[in-house]
């Protein structure tokens, strides 16, 4: 079985901005994303903002090539890091059916 080396971008932040970030990531070239409700606590109290019918914190996961991962992380750090409760990290992953992603 062939595995394709790609990057997993994980962003955890307050619910109120996560849908927007997901859409913006798609605009930057991501082919899809997974958004899930999670529970957690951070140093900023901003995660306490309740969004009706949803949890206070969400996790966004995107499997993308390195060039797009860089674009997404730069965009998020410029637009959201200063004022919102948010954390982002990058990890290496091996993906089955990796040809579905735009590999560099």
């Amino acid at each position, binding site marked *: 079985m062939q595995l394709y080396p790609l990057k997993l971008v994980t962003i955890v932040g*307050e619910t*109120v901005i996560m849908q*927007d970030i997901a859409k913006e990531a798609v605009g930057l070239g991501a082919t899809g994303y997974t958004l899930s409700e999670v529970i957690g606590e951070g140093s900023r*109290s*901003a995660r*306490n*903002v309740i969004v009706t019918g949803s949890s206070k914190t969400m996790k966004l996961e995107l499997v993308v090539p390195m060039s797009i991962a860089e674009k997404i992380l730069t965009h998020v750090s*410029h*637009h959201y890091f200063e004022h919102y409760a948010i954390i982002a990290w990058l990890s290496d992953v091996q993906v089955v059916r990796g040809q579905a992603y735009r590999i560099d």
Partner: protein
Amino acid sequence: MIAPSFAMLCAHVPGIVAVLNAEQFGRVLESLERNLLTPIPLCFVLGLICTRIHGGIRIPKELYLSIAIFLLMSIGFIGGHELAHEYHEHGVSTIWKPALATLFLGCLTPITSYLVLHYGGRLSIADSAGIAAHYGSTSAVTYAVANSFVEQTQHPANSFLPTLVTILECPGIAIALLIGAALTARERAAKGAASGRPVRQSKLGEALYEVMTGQSIMLMAGLLLIGFISTLFMDDKGFAPFYEFFASKGMLFKGVLCIFLLEMGLVAGERLGDLLKVGPFLIAFGILMPLFNGFLGAYFGYLAGLNLGGCTVLAAIVASASYIAAPPAVRLTLPEANPTLSITAALAITFPFNIAFGIPLYFEMAKWLGAT
């Protein structure tokens, strides 16, 4: 007509405290007792205590959300039904003045709140506008509790009060966010130019759209319209099952309101620790601003011809602060604002104050003004 009357009232403000004699003070205490020792505020207190002692009460999120949906639908549907009767009997003659007074109050309270917070409390523009957005809007649960209180005192509010709740929901948030967005735009642009980073576009339009199409407005205004239309066009026999479900002689409504208040107590209990972070100014603001807004609500309600129950409920909704619709809108539009300040003030100070003390005080204010 309203402006000269208000000027006359302002001239009498210094005398207000002086005329509170022992008998009136006793009446206020009696009203407080009549409100406090009833299941709805007591369930809230139970929730508060439970959180503080790490008790075992857990209300499932789905139940809480289902109850919120039922309460909003019920308020809207019954309100629409009563509005149809009112319209059938009097046309718009009894409604337009209270509606106009409510709209005026919805526009006034965010501006006064902003001025007090920014100039009196020396809070930043974003924090002041963020908190003002919470206090300019309203809390449907406070409406439901105030309505229960006036029914209990045998002074039911005018039938069209739910219409006033929907009128009050949006303008306050919109005005405060507009003030905040306009005044912070220049700061943001200067900061962006200094750092060389692109300036993030304001999400004011998106935030306002979210508020207008949020659950509270859609359910309450939607069901108000449905209740109104179906009352006018359905025969009584066909309409009865719907009415009985939503009104349920008040039993289902008051029962689920207890569960809702229990959950509110649990949530507010979590925020009590934050009271130390917000400081004495905001604690005082969270109590005095509702009293001021509540007095304005009772006064303008009285001028607009509302009855005693109606003045009390209008005062309570004007005095209340939004903690569901406002926080996400403020986060989107004014990310610089610290949400701990606004949510703690609205949820841990003003909401409990109104539920325990505010509503009976507004009742006495309305009585004092001469509402019957």
